[in-house]
């Protein structure tokens, strides 16, 4: 049977198992929206295309599936670019469909025309423009495969209007290549044997994990591995939840705002086993001083990430899960036992560091933002899905909420996109309706996508927003305080809306806490209130994020803020 391009698109999405898409209509995608009207595909109408892209990203991170968004041509497409770049930097599987002017008009500067494949070439894993309706089904299949396989990433498919109107035969096409991402990128057994030898020789080993564990669905295997080798684990920002944060072997996050003990352990270790992380500059600090006494093993699915920033002693290109499974098998076969005595000395040293400088803050008259997050952790029993904006709110969330499960901490790590958290929370909540989803935000970043209040009210999406309101663009202010002589150039944003009234104006519930003893009751009430809730916390205006490693300094060189 012949179908119109728009029908083929919807049928292809349903055949891919897509249950929800996030989007915003426009002239170039009228035919597609007409089919959505007829078909049973759930579509969440956002209020800005950037919101659609972040929501699809949040959906993907929370569910582990490919997120999908649909927008029109020109400005609709360009509005998704920040969302696409965000997903690209964090390797999030996502397919973005953009409308395009009819093929005959392409290149003529037509109304609402933008060369979106050209614009997004550097921030997509791959992109397509479909010029012939006969290529449509195949291209969509390829797009989903590329987005989800190997090192995942966003894929954009540009759809000219006439292609959506033209007809072609539709049959579900076969997958792009035989073999799933799991069976590709298998590790080299010889190299893994070498890993075991290096573990046996090490006296002060550390495991460092990143987002690759979460994307590769390897958390169980990691836990198993750590239990066998008894090596302390630190994680990057993207690796939060990869290993239980409450486990005694967890060192928490490392890097610029990492824990004292994680940074000391990595600096002092003699073996660093890095799995699914890419040595971002915020993690390594001064490269020459990073784990400079250690042999470094790097297991990663992306060969291009190996020896890019840090030179390693043993590179292993592999899917994290396959590598860890194989290592666990080998450990069992070899009857591996931990060198208890030596390991104890190392763990004692780490305990000393933990005692010397635990994560903390000094309570005061004002509400401390860290206290808000600690209380949120207590009230949600650590079981919520947390999204963040970017800046201080993000770092405090990473430090003071303990995550025990993967896919529960959603943050823009690589690109650092303010305005990410709220729409991402929408995506996560739509993917997992029974979960408590909380966006930890600042008063600056929440305003970057605040229009999505209309979306959460529209669909009664019960996202809770915690605004740590300090009247500043806090992280930039902190840098101005430390490195620019307290000249707070354009970081004071005391001219902000009354968030309670604003939430109410949109039809959501708004709550406010002004004093420390109001924090718990407000959080409790907010979490217990059905539907979307905005909670505004007037926090200490000049509280800083500590520990802090000055940019370019070794990570052992920390300002503990005391």
């Amino acid at each position, binding site marked *: 049977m012949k179908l119109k391009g728009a029908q083929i698109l919807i049928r292809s999405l349903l055949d891919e198992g897509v249950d929800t898409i996030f989007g915003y209509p426009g002239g170039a995608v009228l035919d597609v929206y007409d089919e959505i009207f007829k078909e049973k595909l759930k579509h969440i109408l956002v209020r800005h295309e950037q919101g659609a892209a972040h929501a699809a990203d949040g959906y993907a991170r929370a569910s582990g599936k490919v997120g999908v968004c649909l927008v029109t041509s020109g400005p609709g497409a360009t509005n998704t670019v920040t969302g696409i770049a965000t997903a690209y930097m964090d390797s999030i599987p996502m397919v973005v469909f953009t409308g395009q002017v009819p093929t005959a008009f392409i290149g003529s500067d037509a109304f609402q025309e933008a060369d979106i*494949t*050209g614009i997004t*070439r*550097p921030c997509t*894993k*791959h992109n397509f423009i479909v010029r012939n309706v006969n290529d449509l089904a195949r291209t969509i299949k390829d797009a989903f495969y*590329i987005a989800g396989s190997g*090192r995942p990433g966003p894929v954009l498919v540009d759809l000219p209007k006439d292609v959506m109107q033209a007809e072609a035969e539709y049959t579900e096409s076969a997958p792009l290549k035989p073999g799933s991402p799991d069976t590709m990128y298998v590790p080299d057994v010889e190299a893994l044997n070498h890993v075991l030898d290096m573990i046996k020789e090490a006296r002060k080993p550390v495991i460092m994990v990143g987002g690759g564990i979460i994307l590769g669905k390897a958390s169980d295997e990691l836990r198993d591995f750590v239990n066998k080798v008894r090596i302390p684990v630190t994680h990057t920002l993207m690796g939060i939840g990869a290993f239980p944060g409450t486990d005694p072997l967890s060192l928490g996050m490392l890097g610029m705002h990492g824990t004292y003990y994680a940074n000391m352990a990595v600096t002092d270790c003699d073996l660093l086993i890095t799995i699914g992380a890419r040595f971002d500059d915020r993690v390594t600090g001064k490269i020459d001083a990073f784990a400079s006494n250690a042999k470094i093993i790097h297991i990663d699915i*992306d*060969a*291009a990430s*190996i*020896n*890019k920033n840090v030179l390693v002693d043993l590179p292993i290109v592999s899917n994290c899960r396959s590598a860890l499974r194989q290592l666990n098998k080998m450990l069992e076969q070899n009857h591996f036992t931990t060198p208890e005595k030596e390991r104890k000395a190392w763990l004692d040293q780490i305990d000393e560091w933990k005692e010397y400088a635990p994560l903390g803050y000094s309570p005061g008259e004002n509400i401390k933002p860290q206290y808000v997050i600690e209380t949120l952790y207590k009230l949600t029993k650590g079981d919520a899905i947390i999204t963040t904006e970017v800046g201080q709110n993000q770092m405090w969330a990473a430090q003071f909420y303990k995550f025990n499960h993967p896919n529960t901490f959603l943050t823009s790590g690589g690109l650092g996109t303010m305005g990410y958290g709220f729409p991402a929370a929408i995506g996560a909540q739509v993917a997992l309706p029974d979960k408590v989803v909380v966006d930890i935000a600042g008063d600056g970043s929440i305003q970057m996508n605040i229009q999505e209040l209309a979306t959460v009210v529209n669909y009664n999406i019960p996202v809770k927003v915690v605004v740590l309101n300090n009247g500043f663009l806090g992280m930039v202010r902190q840098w101005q305080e430390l490195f620019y002589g307290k000249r707070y150039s354009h970081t004071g944003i005391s001219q902000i809306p009354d968030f309670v009234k604003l939430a109410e104006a949109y039809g959501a519930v708004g709550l406010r806490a002004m004093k420390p003893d109001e924090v718990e009751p407000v959080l409790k009430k907010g979490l217990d209130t059905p539907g979307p809730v905005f909670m505004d916390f007037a926090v200490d205006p000049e509280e800083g994020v500590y520990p802090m490693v000055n940019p370019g300094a070794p990570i052992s060189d920390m300002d503990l803020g005391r």
Partner: protein
Amino acid sequence: MIKLIVDNKPDVLARVAGIFSGRGFNIESITASITMDPGITKINIGTTGNSATVTKIQNQLKKLVDVRQVSRVRETKFGQREMALIRLNLTEKNKNKVEKAIEDLNCRVITRKSDYCVIEATGTEDEIEQVLKHLKPLGMEDMSRSGIVAL
């Protein structure tokens, strides 16, 4: 030099070039042409940088979906060639020297007018460098290089 085997698609050259520009690598020369299989294009790129840098470029290029094969070519067993077209001014004074140089350097004359000539030089990159070095003081007015092609 880096040799790429890629799908013959309209935007593949932009993708390849984007890896270089986006990551701060330099393209010294580039040739792209269709192969015996019309679906496949071969791209030869001359670049500079130490071995580690070139490996980084190769790894990034390998990630492109349309790129099938990336290899580093130092010297291929089938050889590599570059062509240069060179325009020389002819005067009574330099005429004989130019004639001799063309013969010594194994170049071919394509156009000859009373006051100028255009010659073609083909050889390895180094040989082309040598030819240019010799001809420059003899009244070289303009030249154009093809970039390297390799099998």
